[in-house]
């Protein structure tokens, strides 16, 4: 098979896959929140209400597409696209499994094994803020602008500790490639722990997960769309599928961040203490690695939902305070200690 064809298949697969996950996530969020809150949630469409996202999608598609009269037409249209595109493309460098052998050909379960995968993620990830700001500005609505501004400030401040944590992991593994980082997490650490990033970087993991919540605009950092304060934030004026794109983009972002968490800190597709490749056929191993990876991602996706329905929301200045006064110093200290340890041990 041609490499191009394989790449194309991988791209199509991962797009469909993330879309499906994002769709299912809307269901998980609604049902999960319901269960947490002693409710039932949507359970009418299909078994367990599984077709609810479908119904939602149909609703979003068939709703009238309204552009406010005083809105900036181009920016208003551009907003959702700018938000959704980076969300979809960021996943390109994140692996979703080890490798699979089909017809004697070894296929990496990753769209592109770029050796500067980190930089790509950071670069594309920060693009998403433009979608929010442009959408917020283009709507010509004060709540939207407030949401956009909040989002900008928040994403910019949290990208710093996020970047520093990423840098720390790079230092630990000595590579920018996400695949190599994944591979390096096999085996055991200190003899009895799985050789996962979380055990090497416990503080780094906490910092990463906090900043990831802020990057994904999830509670407790959902200020850009804090509904009780600024109605719906940047997407107040949006309706129909434009709104759908924003909502989808958010879930895709969540998926990417969860996958990144697994890749960096939770041993990617490795099971603790067990090397699957030794007793599984290469094809079965490919599938198994994918499934293990996804199971881990699913846990973090659930954590996103779980946390959302447990904690209250921050205030704008407190988010800034936390970012600049707590997370950045901690991230820097973490970086410093890691550097020291790496320097001493190597």
């Amino acid at each position: 098979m041609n490499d191009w064809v394989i790449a194309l298949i991988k791209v199509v697969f991962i797009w469909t896959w993330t879309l499906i996950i994002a769709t299912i996530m809307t269901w998980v969020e609604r049902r999960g929140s319901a269960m947490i809150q002693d409710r039932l949630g949507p359970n009418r469409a299909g078994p367990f209400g599984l077709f609810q996202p479908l119904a939602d999608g149909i609703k979003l598609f068939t709703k009238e597409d309204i552009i406010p009269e005083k809105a900036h037409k181009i920016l208003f249209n551009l907003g959702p696209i700018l938000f959704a595109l980076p969300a979809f493309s960021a996943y390109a460098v994140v692996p979703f499994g080890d490798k699979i052998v089909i017809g004697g050909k070894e296929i990496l379960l990753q769209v592109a094994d770029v050796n500067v995968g980190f930089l790509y993620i950071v670069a594309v990830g920060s693009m998403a803020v433009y979608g929010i700001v442009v959408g917020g500005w283009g709507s010509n609505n004060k709540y939207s602008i407030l949401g956009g501004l909040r989002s900008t400030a928040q994403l910019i401040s949290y990208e710093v500790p996020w970047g520093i944590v990423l840098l720390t992991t790079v230092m630990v593994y000595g590579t920018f490639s996400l695949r190599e980082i994944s591979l390096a997490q096999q085996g055991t650490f200190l003899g009895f722990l799985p050789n996962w990033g979380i055990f090497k970087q416990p503080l780094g993991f906490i910092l990463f997960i906090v900043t990831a919540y802020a990057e994904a605009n999830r509670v407790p950092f959902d200020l850009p769309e804090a509904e009780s304060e600024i109605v719906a934030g940047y997407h107040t004026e949006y309706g129909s599928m434009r709104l759908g794109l924003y909502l989808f983009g958010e879930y895709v972002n969540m998926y990417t961040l969860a996958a990144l968490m697994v890749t960096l800190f939770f041993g990617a597709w490795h099971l603790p203490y067990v090397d699957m490749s030794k007793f599984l056929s290469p094809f079965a191993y490919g599938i198994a690695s994918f499934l293990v990876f996804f199971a881990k991602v699913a846990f973090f996706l659930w954590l996103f939902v779980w946390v959302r329905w447990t904690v209250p929301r921050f205030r704008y200045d407190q988010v800034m305070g936390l970012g600049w006064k707590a997370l950045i110093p901690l991230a820097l200290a973490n970086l410093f200690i890691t550097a020291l340890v790496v320097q001493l041990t190597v």
Partner: protein
Amino acid sequence: MARPVVEKKYSFTERIYLYEIVKGLGLTWKHFVKNFTASLKRGPHTVPTCWQYPEDRREISPIFRGEHLLLLDEQGREKCVGCGMCARACPAKCITVKRGKVAEGEESRYAGKTYCEEFQIDLLRCIFCGFCEEACPKGAIALGKGYELARYTPGECQLTKEKMLANYRREKELGILKPPRKPVPVAGAAKEAAAKAKGADEGKAKD
């Protein structure tokens, strides 16, 4: 205005955010597991909040104040005599009653000598306070169990005599008619009765 400055004093576990958040996560997880297992069960009202409405309905109080009924007595005669006390007691002024004299030969249909020719309740105005029920000297009107009051047109919201009688028949069939109102014990009533029994003198003296 001098705003008081409040010093925030946090204990260590409060200061680090995560301890309390993890505790909270534990609590919500407990709820999740409980409700998840409950939701797998069949049957009405498996989780505390939800009733699967059209299929499952919550039990409503035997003295619920819903859509009105016009009551018949044991012989199937209309109790209402059309006196209009309900209309006078109504704070929302939603009742219209027209009194009519019972024609000869129709005595078997009506309990009294007069009857209501026309009895209309405007459900759009009604506030379901139940004062009509209390005001009625014959116990002819009652607030029933009907709580599904959505209608398509304003005209359908006019509760006519026929509709109220139909409501009564339906509720009687279902056996959910309101138990008759217990008379409220009034202060001094017992004493007065006793005084009457003893003699008029004491009753006067007490006054």
